[in-house]
């Protein structure tokens, strides 16, 4: 398939990128990994007048911790890097569990976390993870000023984010944990590379056996990624035992808005949400689920 014609720029700095962006405004699209954008352009669901390829801009391919313990993931950090990251493996269990479950190996070699969240596909895995972690997207404007947007306010609808036309998403930021992180990402898929039938992100911040903060979010069971606020609140300040786990799992299943489709019935998907939450939390306290 041939996309429609577009003007292509591959700037070598953010300053240059902002220059092009100012000329084209919302007629321009930023290209990082391109694993969602290029298929859209090929199918002509999107026909930007200008594509600004940021792959030549140095300093965006990183993921590192700040001195305060927050994690920053640059706009060109690929899923592949996160999948193999010793930092994530040792300190970020939810993200570490997610990276290998994104699409397939070739897409992971190219695609980026920031791009995935910006794309705002309701079936996207990373947006759920960012919701569970309380993550933010950091947008930069042409003056170099940064604006932090919580992902809960960034993804506002299917394929809709709240970036301004003159802004570029330069990194994702995950705040430091209150205590020790625990958690996981569970994904039921018909085959590798398919969208999730059900995806579940659980991100806990614990002191000993007590949950300081719980983040729970769902993929694939509603018009958007769903944050299970009631379930999260039910766990705050509690210890994990069979009754608190059961309550959180029931509240999560209630928060899901699944539909019948080729991947399964609504009832089935809701059941999987319950099972996944139980499994993810029971695993943490070494109980059989």
């Amino acid at each position: 398939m041939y996309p429609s014609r577009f003007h292509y720029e591959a700037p070598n700095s953010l300053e240059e990128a902002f220059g092009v962006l100012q000329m084209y405004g919302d007629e321009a699209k930023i290209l990082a990994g391109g694993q969602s954008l290029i298929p859209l352009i090929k199918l002509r669901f999107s026909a930007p007048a200008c594509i600004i390829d940021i792959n030549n801009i140095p300093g965006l391919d990183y993921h590192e911790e700040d001195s305060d313990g927050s994690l920053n993931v640059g706009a060109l950090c690929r899923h592949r890097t996160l999948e193999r990251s010793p930092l994530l493996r040792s300190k970020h269990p939810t993200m570490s569990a997610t990276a290998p479950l994104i699409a397939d190996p070739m897409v992971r070699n190219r695609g980026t976390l920031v791009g995935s969240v910006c794309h705002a596909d309701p079936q996207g895995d990373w947006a759920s993870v960012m919701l569970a972690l309380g993550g933010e997207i950091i947008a930069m404007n042409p003056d170099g000023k940064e604006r932090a947007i919580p992902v809960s306010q960034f993804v506002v609808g299917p394929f809709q984010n709240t970036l301004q036309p003159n802004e570029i998403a330069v990194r994702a930021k995950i705040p430091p944990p209150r205590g020790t992180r625990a958690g996981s990402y569970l994904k039921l898929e018909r085959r590798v590379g398919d969208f999730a039938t059900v995806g579940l992100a659980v991100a806990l911040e614990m002191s000993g056996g007590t949950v300081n903060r719980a983040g729970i979010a769902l993929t694939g069971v509603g018009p958007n990624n769903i944050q299970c606020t009631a379930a999260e609140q039910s766990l705050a300040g509690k210890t994990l035992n069979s009754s608190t786990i059961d309550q959180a799992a029931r509240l999560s299943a209630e928060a899901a808005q699944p539909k019948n489709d080729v991947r399964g019935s609504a009832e089935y998907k809701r059941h999987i949400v319950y099972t996944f939450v139980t499994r993810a939390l029971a695993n943490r306290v070494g109980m059989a689920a």
Partner: protein
Amino acid sequence: MEERRINVVVNGEMKSVDVEPRILLAHFLREILGLTGTHIGCDTTNCGVCTVLVDGLPMKSCTMFAVMVDGKEVQTVEGLGLDSELHPIQQGFREEHGLQCGFCTPGMMMASKALLMENPNPTEEDVRWGLSGNLCRCTGYQNIVKAVLWAAEKLRSDAATFSR
């Protein structure tokens, strides 16, 4: 019509070509360079048939624009073996009957090459995971996995012979 000059090393040979930005890498390889070994399957980022190596990593050439490989090195299935001798991965696919219709084979081989470069001693599970983005509509996966394991062993024994 807007065109851009790209400089790209394809299978060890420097190419300097003017291309329209909307030309996909897969089209560039097949239609401009005449390297038709890279196949186009689903054309929707699902099947992995169009996999080539870009700077050593497997990527879907239907999901990159040719202008994005400016300054990079691309390897296609044509660069795998020599006219006089098949690459051990190609030998493995022959020995273990790793293909039926053969349409997915170029992508399978390029993904296998990257897999074996990163992990020269893979388990069956590693091979299945490494090739999980490559679909075979003949569903001939059993022999594809065997072919890659055969190639892994051949490459290891070749390397051992070499260093002796």
